[in-house]
């Protein structure tokens, strides 16, 4: 199968004047474990007779996405996600719905503001006022985000190092790993064996564009070290080689993120994704306390837990936490894990309640949009 099959599409897009879209792995023509062919433009788009908007091949975007993501067998990110896993608060489910109207009075949901969130707003519009996967995710060129949470829970921020796929025949194994402390960008890696032989003897080239070009173009080629070592031209990912390699074989993998439209759902000015549809729940501590004179408790206004406020910023904090609380601040700066212990290194990643670097609370401090532990999409079932 041609590894260059994506190229004609890109050329065609250029010739036809279609807007060229950046493509992040694994949507960039990189071989993907579990699929016979790389994900190409044609995997989701049709030039004619397309049933979906933007020339997508299915009216149901969820089906389009899930038809690939449901084939994941490793369990990464909790896949497969199914419709019956969409949450109904109080009833069941563990995912934010992807088929619901953007307007929902029960959850203070409104369509995203077209000025503040133009792309999210546009996508809700073309989807008949409903949300869909691509309202929050940008499958083409999502931002490299750094939010909290572990793989499969927060669904954000944690780089995903894919399984290695082999094109060609070779018995050797390539084991990639993320370099300690590195900030790995979304990137695909194709290691082509140049001269075969045992690990340590064989050499390789690397491609960062799904096999379109390799570097270095000529010898000397990098050795296939048996110990983890950086790939030429990339300090973020290390690879170790073992076994015997055959010249021409290509080992491919990629680093990817959840492709969110906005970065840093915990850090800094986070919570945009949540705020875009639930702005009324983005309340200050002042308002949540009922001290916002412009937002009185009149029986109509609802109050929500403050967002983007420092943890413990509570004017009504008291010393009623029991003995041992020498001061209110000390008491309130402690988050307990489900076992009652102070949250810390022993807390399972899936149950961490994260604050940003300033100690502020955000939506995703307590809620996960996917693979949550409760039907209200909370971090855990507390």
């Amino acid at each position, binding site marked *: *199968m*041609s590894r260059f*099959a994506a190229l004609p599409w890109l050329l065609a897009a250029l010739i036809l004047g279609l807007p060229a879209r950046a493509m992040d792995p694994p949507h960039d023509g990189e*071989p993907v*474990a*579990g*699929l*016979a*062919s790389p994900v*190409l433009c*044609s*995997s989701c788009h049709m030039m004619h007779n397309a049933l979906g908007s933007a020339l997508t*091949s*299915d009216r149901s975007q969820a*089906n*389009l996405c*899930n*038809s*690939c993501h*449901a*084939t994941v*067998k*490793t*369990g990464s990110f*909790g896949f*497969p996600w*199914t*419709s*019956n*896993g969409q949450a109904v608060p109080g009833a069941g489910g563990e995912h934010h719905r992807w088929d619901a109207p953007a307007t929902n009075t029960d959850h203070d949901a409104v369509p995203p503001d077209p000025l503040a969130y133009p792309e999210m707003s546009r996508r809700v519009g073309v989807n008949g006022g409903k949300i869909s996967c691509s309202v929050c995710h940008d499958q083409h060129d999502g931002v490299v985000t750094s939010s909290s949470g572990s793989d499969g829970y927060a669904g954000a921020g944690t780089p995903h190092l894919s*399984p290695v*796929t*082999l*094109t*060609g*025949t070779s018995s050797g194994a390539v084991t990639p790993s993320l370099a300690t402390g590195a900030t790995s960008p979304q990137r695909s890696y194709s290691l082509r064996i140049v*001269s075969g*032989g*045992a*690990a*340590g*003897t064989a*050499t390789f080239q690397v491609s960062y564009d799904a096999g379109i070009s390799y570097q270095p173009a000529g*010898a*000397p080629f990098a*050795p*296939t*070290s*048996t*110990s983890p070592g950086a790939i030429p031209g990339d300090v973020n990912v290390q690879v170790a080689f073992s076994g015997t390699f055959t010249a021409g074989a290509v080992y491919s993998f990629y680093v990817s993120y959840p492709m969110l439209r906005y970065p840093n759902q915990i850090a800094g000015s986070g919570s945009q994704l949540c705020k875009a549809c639930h702005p009324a729940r983005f309340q200050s501590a002042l308002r949540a306390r009922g001290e916002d004179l412009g937002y009185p408790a009149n029986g109509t206004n609802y109050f929500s837990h403050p967002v983007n406020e420092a943890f413990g910023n509570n004017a009504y904090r008291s010393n009623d936490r029991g003995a041992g609380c020498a001061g209110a601040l000390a008491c309130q700066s402690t988050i307990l894990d489900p076992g009652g212990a102070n949250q810390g290194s022993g807390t399972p990643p899936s149950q961490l309640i994260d604050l940003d670097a300033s100690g502020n609370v955000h939506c995703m401090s307590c809620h996960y949009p996917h693979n949550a532990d409760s039907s209200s999409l909370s971090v855990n079932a507390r």
Partner: protein
Amino acid sequence: MSRSGRAVALAFFCVATPSAATAMGLSWGCTATQPPTVAVQLDSRTAVVGSTVGISATAMSQTSVRWFVAVVPAGQGSLVGGTLLGDGSTQVAFTTGAASVAGAASWVLPPIPGTYTVTVSALNCASGSGSASATVTAAAQPTILPVIDSLVGSADRALAGKSLALKAAAHDPAGGSVTYAWSADAGTFSSATGSSTSWTAPGAAGQSTITLTVSNGQGTATASLPVTVALAEYQASFGRGGRAPRRVVAGASGELYVVDARSGDILRMTPNGQPVGALKVPDRMLAATFGKNVLYATSRSGGLYAIDPLGGPPRAIPLRSGALRMPSGVALDAGRGVLWIAESAANQITGIRLDGSTVAVITGAAGESLAGLDDVAVDAAGGVLWASVSSNEQGNNAFAFDLGTGAYLHPAAPYGSGSGQVTRTGGIAVDGAGRLFVSDIFQGRVAVYQRGGAAAGTVGQFGDGPSQLSLPAGVAVTPDGGILVASMDQGAVKRFGTGNPPPAQACTVNGSLDSDCDGMPDWWELKYGLNPYWAGDALLDADGDGLSNLQEYVLGTNPRVANALPKTTPQAPVLTVPAPRASDPGLVRFSTTLSSPTSCTVTWKQRLGPAVTLRGAGSLTPSFVGRLAGRYQFQGTAACGAQSATAVIEASIRNVAPRPDAGRLVVAHAGGRIVLDGRFSSDANADALRFVWDQTAGPALSGASTAATLPVKLRQPGYAAFQLTVADPAGKSGSAEAPVYVASDAAAPTAVASSPVVAATGAPVTLDASQSVDPAGTGTYAWVQVAGSPVALAGAATARPTFTPAAAGRYAFLVTISDGALHSPPALVEVLVGPSAGLPVAALAQASLQATVGEPVALDGGGSAASSGGGLQYAWRQVSGPAAGLTDADRAIATAVPFAPGVYVFELAVVEGGAPSQPARVTVTATSSTAGQGIPVAVAAGPLASTTGASISLDGTRSRDPDGHRLRYRWTQVAGPWVPLEDSTSSTPSFRPQLPGVYAFELEVDDLAIRSAAAPVSVTVSAPGGTP
């Protein structure tokens, strides 16, 4: 009548009856002057063939009409009562005698459609004649067609291969009988000629037209009946198929099993879709298939298990070839006892016998890899193994292999969204007719193919309704032909019928009613207080004895009284170890394998040999550093529920020869005394050493000695060599030479040669010692080959002899120069011969390494490169330093273990097709944390330049020992004309050069136990007022 017509009639008359007319005219003697006027009329101008047309004719004449007839020509019918004339015409004669006569006749038209003419002629008595004609068009006889009164089918839809009752009624309006003929564009009839029949639909889905033709002999009537042929019809949605049912399995009794992709559970359901419960599984399961009373299932971590469908404990099948890699599909070839497993992470289909041994591996189809491999299915009757890949945009999504040989047969399920195409496969299954069912997870339907790969239609359609499919994944065929589809997105299993009835709401077990179809009859459930209307109690354990209620029923035991569990022996893991082997001292690594589908705890401990620290004692790759010669054994076990048998790994550390250290070249004055010291010799096995010194070259200066040191009085100038042999108690020995050059007062000849020399096979090579120092100008050269295939040197007595190497390899020569009285110490010339493309390159990852005594350090020559793309042979060796452990010396990455603190030098040479590389060296400095074992540091200094005849002092006083030990000094000249050092074992020796040149020395210091690295110093000596 026209004039022409009249003339014709008359002519006809004359021709027809000439004699009669003449006779009549002559006989009557009539006086009329005008011929008779004749008129003729027909009662119809049109008629059907064979019908009778009435003719009315009149004739009027001035005199009596004597002859009046109507004639129809031959072939134009006949006149009733007429006379057939000789020319075939028919004639009727009318009454005559009056001047005005009339006649009538009946004209029977011929059976052939056409236009026909009758002619009436009259003749009066004066022989005047007249005639008239009339024509009639005879049309064909009208056909009377039969009438079809009704055509009724029992349905307007039919399932492929199933029959449809047809009934028709027809009659013949003409009163005759009718016949029936049935036809269709596909399918077959039980009777093709009856008024009632049954039609069997074709095997492929689509629109068919049934046609009935009824005939009454004259004509036919037809009627048609369109029928939609479907492969299956929706019957039920089993809505509790887990959160994300990926695989569905049909059991022998119609029960079904669902593998939940979210939880990894295997859920049992009744034939009518009621949940029974989760089976006991050891891991997150990926796929399953049904065997005889057992489910064979694969797990995400690569295990293969026999799962008890009654809820008993699972049994691991030990995999002889290791864990499976993401086994996403499994199918059983019951006839051969082979489980075919789709290893999606390995892009291969693996056939595994039920004992866990591997029988076959299929890695490709038609030259293509099986990337995206998803599922497998067995068509036992057809001898076909099917495999599916997901989303093969470049070709087909399913491939058929010969079930017996694994040979590729043909493809199916081409990629696409059209008829007969599949976009992304979710699972496959085969029915008893060999039809392949391929679920399309994107299109939301199941594509069906004949055994040969031809498309046969689809089952189901995309949607989220009860009868629709969303993300359909696994497919299964029930024993009664029903099709089960795991609609993953809906968390449901959909059942489609192929003519079989929907599953009953109640079942029977051994003839007794089982209302909830859980496999336990109602009476038994009632007897023991279970719920006969709730299937969920089947897998519960009412008495807590480890047996499910369903097991208790099958075993005939009381579910309310705890029973002794049947003895079950967990499948013991198997540790497979390598054969005992021998190794040089150093790091010894073992690689063992574990046959167990689950994770095990592995433990190793030493059972034989000198005590060592076992590294990786909890892994499958333990290792140890062995030094003392002998056998080392370690025993290990693996435990994962059951414990493996004790396995033993063994290695023997060889007794290797000691490493002699006889010292370096000593240049001294005649008459002086030196002490050759072999005490830095060492042994990698740590054996005690015996020493033997013996002079091997030069004028006799000393006898043999068995001491570690050898005092030598340098009685006369010349070159001498003393061999040190060190031996261990077992007799292993190694030898090295200590070269000594005893200088005279005159300047010494010095052999200087260019080395190494790189040359090509077949090309002449010149050895060059022309830079040698020949103070007297009378020097003669002597060359000796010491390595490589023997060659003949041309000009062997000159400074530049030549030879032509016939083969690649390393050649080495020693050259000495003699001034007649003194021979210089030899200089070594290496010649590295390879192809014209060049030599391979030995490359080291690092030029120097730090190490810890007793700890392995990797010597990495993996960056070495071949020059011609060939394979490389590696050869590591130790060059200097205390004897170290060196293992994997023939690999790119060797392992060294320094046994003592000090400075070690290792050298790598690679060979490609006989062509050697230039060696590359790495220095390893091994330190010890033991007090008093610091490595001394040599620091050498001297003037940068001086002149001949001057006394030049070298300074090693800045050398130091970190532990404050007293230091010994060893100065060695490494370049320049040989010159003796005064007080050569002191920290400040001196020399007086007689010849210009660059004099280079190395200083090493030791504390009697540990020697430093060499520190270089060089002095450029020139003639006074001149240049070197």
